[in-house]
Structures are given as C-alpha cells and as structure tokens.
C-alpha cells in the first residue's frame, strides 16, 4: 500500500465519520478510541482517522471482536481491496462455513473498523446523517451495501484463521510425474491487452447506455477486434470474451473511464510507470470490483452489483494458499469445492447451466497469465496449479518476491516504421510508453507495433515530444534508430507545430505596439499575434497588477448589439464602445469598410452586391445573415439587403405602362370599384384613392364618369377629350 493510497483511504474514513450523527459517532469512537474526555466532534473524527495507523491499538480492537468479524476483516486484508460489497463478504464467510448473516459486519461497523461506502447523491439532494447502522442497512437498495475499511486496519487482521480446509485436489510434487518443472507466465498478457483497449478507446470513444453499459455496436466492435480476441500467448485455458475482460480490467484500472455518457481513454494515467509487481498487485486488488465479466458468460454487465464471482475468486486463491509445500492442485477440484460451498451455487434454486465448473477457466485463463499462479502438467496431461511467489505475497502470506530482471534493450526499430518488442524486456512502463506513440499490431512472444502519423500525433497531444519518443526508442533499441524513422518522427512532430488551436484563450489588445512590448518585457506569459495583440492560454497566469483594464468581453456569452443600420438599409455604423474583435473580424467577410467614418466619428461599413456575393461564397448564407442582423442590430434583415442577396432568385418582374386614375376620396374609389358600370374598367386598386385602369377602356370610363357629373383632369394629353 502506497502512502498516497493510505492517505486517500484516511480521507474516506473521515468522510464516512462526518456522515454519522453525533450520538452514533460518539458510540463508534468509544469502541475504537476509549476516550477519557468528551472531545469535540471534529477532534474525535481526527483521532479516529489517526488511530487507523496505530498498529498496537488496532491489534487490540481486532482481538476484542467476535471471531466471525475478525475473519471478515481478514478476508478483506487478503484481498488487498479495502472496499467490498457486503453481500460478497457474507458469501466469503458462508463459503468458509460461517453463515451468520450480517451480524459480523454490524459488529465491525460498531467497532469503527468498517464503514458504509460513500454514495453519490444527485446535486441538490440532501443526505441525512446516519443515526444507526440498522438504518443504513435499510437503505441497502441505494448503497448496494458497499462497505470499506482502512487498508492499514485490514492488513493487521491477516493471520487470523479463516476456517478453510486443506486445499482440495492436492497432488504431491512427487506424483506429478516427469514434468515437475513449475511454469510461470511473464505477467504482461493482460497489461498488453489493456494497452490495446486504451488505444482503441483513444481512437474512438465508446458510447455508454443509461445503465453505464456498452451499446451493442461498440460491444461488437471490441468483441470482434482481431487483436483483442486473439488467443493469449501465455494462457493455459481460454477466458471467454477475452476482449471484454481486457476492457473491464482497463476500466477497473482507470485507463478507461465513463465521462458525459461515453467511455473515454484517460491520458493522464499513461504516464504512471509501475513496477511489474505493483501493476499485477493493482490488478489483483481490482479483482473484487470485476463484476461485469465472469468465466461462464464472459461479458455480463447485468450481473454487476450482485455478482457472486468476486467472493469465489478469493476463496479459490485462499484455498491454494493452504496447499502443502511443493504440492499442486487440480483447478477443477478447487472449483468443485467452491461451487459446493458458495451460497450462490449451493442454493437449491440454482439453474443447472450455472453449475458449470468455471474454475479452470479463471485459474488457467486469468490468474495464471497474471503471474499469480504457477502451473505444471500432471502425468495424465492435465494442468495443475499452485500460488506463485508473487501470488503468496499478494495474499499476504510471504514477503515480496524480487523483481524479475528485464533487458533494457528489447526493441528492434525497423526502417519501415515497425517496432519489434521482445517480451522479456517489456515492463508496464515501457508498454504504456510504446502504446502511447505506436499502434499495437500483434501480441505474442514478440509483439509488433507500427509508428504512424496518427499514433505519434496522439502521443504529442498527450505531452510527449519528438525528443522523448526518440529517447524511448534509443534507450530500449537493440540497434540505433534508423535515420528514416528519425526523419519521419521529426516531420510528424514539426507538422504539428504548424497549426496551434487555442480552445479557450484570453486575448489582450493593447493600445500601441510599445505597450505590448512593455507587457511582454514585464513577463506576460503570452504569444504575440500582431503588433497590438497577444494571446495567453491560461488567464490565471497573467499578473494583472501590471495592467489597467479598459474593458473585457466574454466570447462564450451571446454577441452584443452594437451595430446601427442607417436609413438606406446597407450602411452599418459601429458603436465603438460595445463593438468587439469578433464583429470586426466577421464584418469584412460580407461588407466593405468605408474610408470616411460617420459624422460622429464612428466606423462604418457598407453592404454592396459585390461584398455580399463574396460573403455568400464564404458561407454567409441568407439565414446566417438574418441571424447576424438579429444578434448585432436587434432587427431583421433590411429589405435592401434582402434585395441584394435574394433579388436574383425572385420570379421575373414586369415593367409596363399603366393608366392611373386618382380620385379625391377613398369613398369615391370604393364606389368606382363597386358600381358594375365602372368596375369592369378597373384593373387593380393601387391604393386608397388610386386605381389602375386598362388603357383601351379609358375613353369609356371617362364618359361614364362625366355622365355622373364627375369633373375630370388628365396629366396625359393622349387621354384628354378633344
């Protein structure tokens, strides 16, 4: 357990205790600390957290516990995983012959050596402080009965007798036969496959269903991946859905995480270089959390939350720890024992299909490639297993084994950009480094990777540099890196320098080039964009004591109205106080800057047929212009602009001569339109007092009007009476 791990779990203990109501907290603290004084709540919590690292006190408290509670804590200690589902812990107790129900766990909770696991509540939902542990058990559907202990406390419980029998199916070494040599995997198989998963998810994130599962298409993409579904080089039995086991392990190890409805690759974890023992110990500790995969069904997310396998895995490994020195065990016999005693498989209602002895698939297909086990073949050709030195250390039965020496020079970089990686020199750190900048092509006793522009670009995005990539190749290469490879790496790296995209930067506009020079000289961490503009990626790095703000504008907010449309509809006047760079950058795309500003000194632009045509060619469509005018001027597109943009698309216009009759009042016009004698001469009503009249009927209409006594004047001599 690293110091950072212990500190993280101490924080969890603190958080759990802060969630207790004061009477419950005092009750637990009384059992854990035996305080002589009435400490304030915060101090009581501090003391409870601190006592977790106090081995003599923890030892005394453990001794005071009932035997079943001690066993429960011991199981947690052997697992290296401080957080378990309560159901799995009770299955472990039942499997070892002690089916007492939740009483042993309650005793641990009351003793301050076990805590309810944190529950994520939606924002805004208040959480009540815990008054009794019975109350917490009543909320089990919400919490899933998750519990945790401090790893330092669990480690102190190791050594307690778990009540397990001698390992079933034990075979003495003397009877193994002619091939007694112990066989041990290199432990890299699943680490390599997790690296492949990481690459696949980096290339294209996977969508997450509402239940946090994979969509069918992504599931099939992973399952059918030729590299991930290839048989492992070192496994002695096939693990079903190996690709999805690798995915589940990558999730458990944080290489892949759920984020905004997707599974995404976590780039930050790639930099963590662990020793092989530490990496395999981390995978061992992840075993109880591996609930979406099992050795019968392969990928089975529906079992998450109630999976019986985590308890069964630990029972099997602890049984192997009971093997006499130099003895081996038959995986099937271990499986038969577990199936007969684990409450899930020993229940009467269990379906026959569930009773398959899956233990050989787990021990030979998963645990053996993890290097937790050694294997050998019996005289009848069956595989036998026992714990490896690493496995004994992981379970807390032995000191850590020495690290296997690795060969630093293990890569063969070829001029065709292919890298041959011999496994005996690979380490978790090197796997992570190689996976970051080259694409895995095959996994075997020698693995191949391909250097590609995309893979190098991905590495550069993650913080690698041309120099760091080359250094890895040189450091681990059996021969100097070929010049062609160096040139390609340099070209790809340089190409990336050609375009920089600032996703959310702060732009500083200075009044003069001298001001910008002064700011840079005073240490402004910016990049010069022009003689008056500089950009900084991180505003918090700017020392604002050097600057006087004339104004600020947030581009994530909607644009401001800062443009006035003149009466002609095509001349735009800018309000300098409210205008911004965005405006002055987009306006030239569809308007021409006027050399002379308006009478009050404001800058002006004019929309012309040519400028609008250029704008349309550059993507400024009519709807885009309409949106722009609404945002910037607060009104719709002026008719004049509409005319210039869409006039050409309108139906053909008709230009013709027309005779217009204009009468004195609206009523007269109404009368002419209504009276049948005159109605036939009216073609259109043009306005309240104006009517369009057919030229050929003009004389007849005039006669009618004169017959009514209506005086008549005409501006056109052609239609005047002789």
């Amino acid at each position, binding site marked *: 357990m690293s110091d950072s791990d212990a500190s993280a779990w101490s924080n969890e203990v603190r958080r759990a205790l802060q969630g207790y109501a004061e009477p419950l907290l005092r009750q637990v603290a009384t059992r854990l600390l035996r305080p002589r004084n009435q400490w304030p709540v915060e101090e009581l919590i501090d003391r409870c957290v601190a006592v977790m690292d106090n081995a003599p006190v923890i030892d005394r408290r453990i001794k005071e516990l009932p035997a079943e509670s001690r066993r429960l804590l011991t199981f947690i200690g052997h697992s290296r995983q401080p957080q378990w589902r309560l159901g799995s812990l009770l299955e472990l107790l039942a499997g070892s012959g002690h089916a007492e129900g939740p009483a042993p766990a309650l005793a641990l909770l009351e003793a301050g050596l076990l805590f309810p696991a944190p529950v994520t509540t939606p924002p805004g939902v208040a959480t009540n402080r815990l008054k009794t542990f019975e109350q917490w058990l009543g909320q089990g559907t919400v919490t899933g009965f998750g519990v945790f202990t401090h790893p330092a406390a669990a480690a102190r419980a190791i050594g307690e007798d778990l009540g397990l029998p001698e390992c079933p199916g034990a075979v003495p070494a003397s009877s193994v036969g002619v091939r007694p040599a112990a066989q041990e995997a290199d432990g890299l198989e699943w680490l390599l496959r997790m690296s492949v998963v990481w690459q696949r998810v980096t290339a294209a994130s996977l969508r997450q269903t509402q239940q946090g599962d994979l969509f069918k298409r992504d599931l099939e993409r992973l399952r059918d991946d030729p590299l991930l579904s290839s048989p492992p080089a070192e496994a002695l039995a096939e693990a079903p859905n190996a690709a999805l086991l690798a995915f589940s392990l990558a999730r458990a190890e944080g290489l892949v995480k759920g984020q905004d409805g997707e599974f995404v690759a976590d780039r930050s974890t790639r930099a963590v270089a662990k020793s092989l023992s530490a990496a395999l110990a981390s995978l061992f500790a992840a075993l109880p959390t591996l609930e979406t995969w099992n050795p019968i069904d392969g990928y089975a997310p529906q079992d998450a939350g109630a999976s019986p396998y985590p308890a069964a895995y630990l029972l099997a490994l602890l049984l192997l720890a009971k093997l006499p020195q130099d003895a081996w065990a038959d995986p099937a016999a271990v499986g038969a024992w577990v199936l007969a005693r684990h409450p899930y498989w020993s229940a009467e209602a269990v379906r026959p299909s569930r009773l398959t002895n899956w233990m050989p698939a787990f021990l030979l297909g998963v645990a053996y490639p993890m290097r937790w086990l050694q294997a050998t073949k019996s005289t009848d050709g069956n595989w036998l297993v026992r714990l490896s030195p690493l496995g004994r250390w992981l379970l807390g039965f032995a000191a850590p084994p020495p690290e296997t020496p690795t060969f630093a020079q293990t890569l063969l970089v070829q001029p065709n950009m292919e890298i041959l990686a011999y496994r005996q020199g690979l380490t978790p750190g090197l796997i992570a480094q190689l996976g970051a900048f080259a694409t895995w092509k095959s996994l075997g006793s020698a693995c191949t990777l391909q250097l590609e522009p995309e893979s190098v670009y991905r590495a550069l995005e993650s913080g690698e540099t041309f120099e760091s990539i080359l250094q890895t190749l040189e450091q681990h290469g059996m021969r100097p890196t070929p010049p062609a490879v160096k040139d390609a790496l340099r070209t790809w790296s340089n190409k990336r320098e050609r375009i920089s995209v600032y*996703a959310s930067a*702060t732009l500083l506009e200075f009044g003069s080039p001298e001001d910008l020079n002064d700011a840079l000289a005073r240490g402004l961490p910016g990049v010069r964009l022009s003689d008056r503009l500089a950009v900084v990626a*991180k505003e918090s790095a700017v020392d604002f004591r050097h*600057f006087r703000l004339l104004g600020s504008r947030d581009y994530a907010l909607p644009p401001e109205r800062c443009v006035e449309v003149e009466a002609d509809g095509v001349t735009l006047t800018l309000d300098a106080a409210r205008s911004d760079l965005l405006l002055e950058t*987009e306006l030239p795309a569809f308007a021409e800057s006027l050399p002379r500003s308006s009478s009050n000194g404001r800058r002006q632009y004019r929309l012309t047929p040519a400028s609008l045509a250029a704008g349309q060619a550059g*993507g400024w469509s009519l709807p885009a212009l309409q949106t722009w005018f609404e945002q910037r001027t607060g009104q719709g597109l002026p008719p004049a602009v509409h005319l210039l943009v869409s006039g050409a698309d309108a139906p053909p216009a008709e230009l013709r001569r027309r005779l217009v009759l204009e009468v004195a009042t609206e009523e007269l016009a109404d009368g002419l339109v209504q009276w049948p004698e005159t109605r036939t001469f009216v073609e259109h009503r043009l306005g309240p007092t104006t009517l369009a009249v057919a030229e050929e009927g003009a004389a007849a209409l005039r006669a009618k009007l004169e017959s009514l006594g209506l005086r008549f004047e005409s501006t056109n001599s052609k239609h005047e009476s002789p």
Partner: protein
Amino acid sequence: MNPPARPNPATRIPVKLYRRVALIQTEDAILAAEILARRKLAADLVGRLTDRVLLVRPGRVDAVIEELQRMGHTPQRIDERD
C-alpha cells in the same frame, strides 16, 4: 532580503481583454488562407484576425480540429491546462 518590487499602479498598461476566445494560429499566411478557403470550415470560422490568426466561432473548436485533421494537418491543441 527585500520583498519583490511591486509594480507602480501609475505605470499600469491599458489593455482590453477578450475572454474564452477560440482561435487558430498558423505558421504562415498561406496556410491561414488555405484553411480559410476550406468550404467545410466556412461556417465555423468567424474570419481573419491577422494574416496568420483565424477566429473560430464559439463552441466549434472540436469540429474545426476534426476538419483540420481531415485536411491532413496535425493541429496542436492548446488548452488552459497547457
């Protein structure tokens, strides 16, 4: 040891600040023109701030990077954490 000299407020440099701006800076003006001429990017680019700097429409950075990659470029994304 003397404390570090504090800048004199009287000599503060006047500056206008534009926050959360998305932009592209290219190595040369020709590259900027090439990007600006890309029809698929037209709706995502506001315009040209300088001969080597293009302003990106707010919220369109990811789409712009994807299109640049489709053009065969390998743009360097600079975020706040950088």
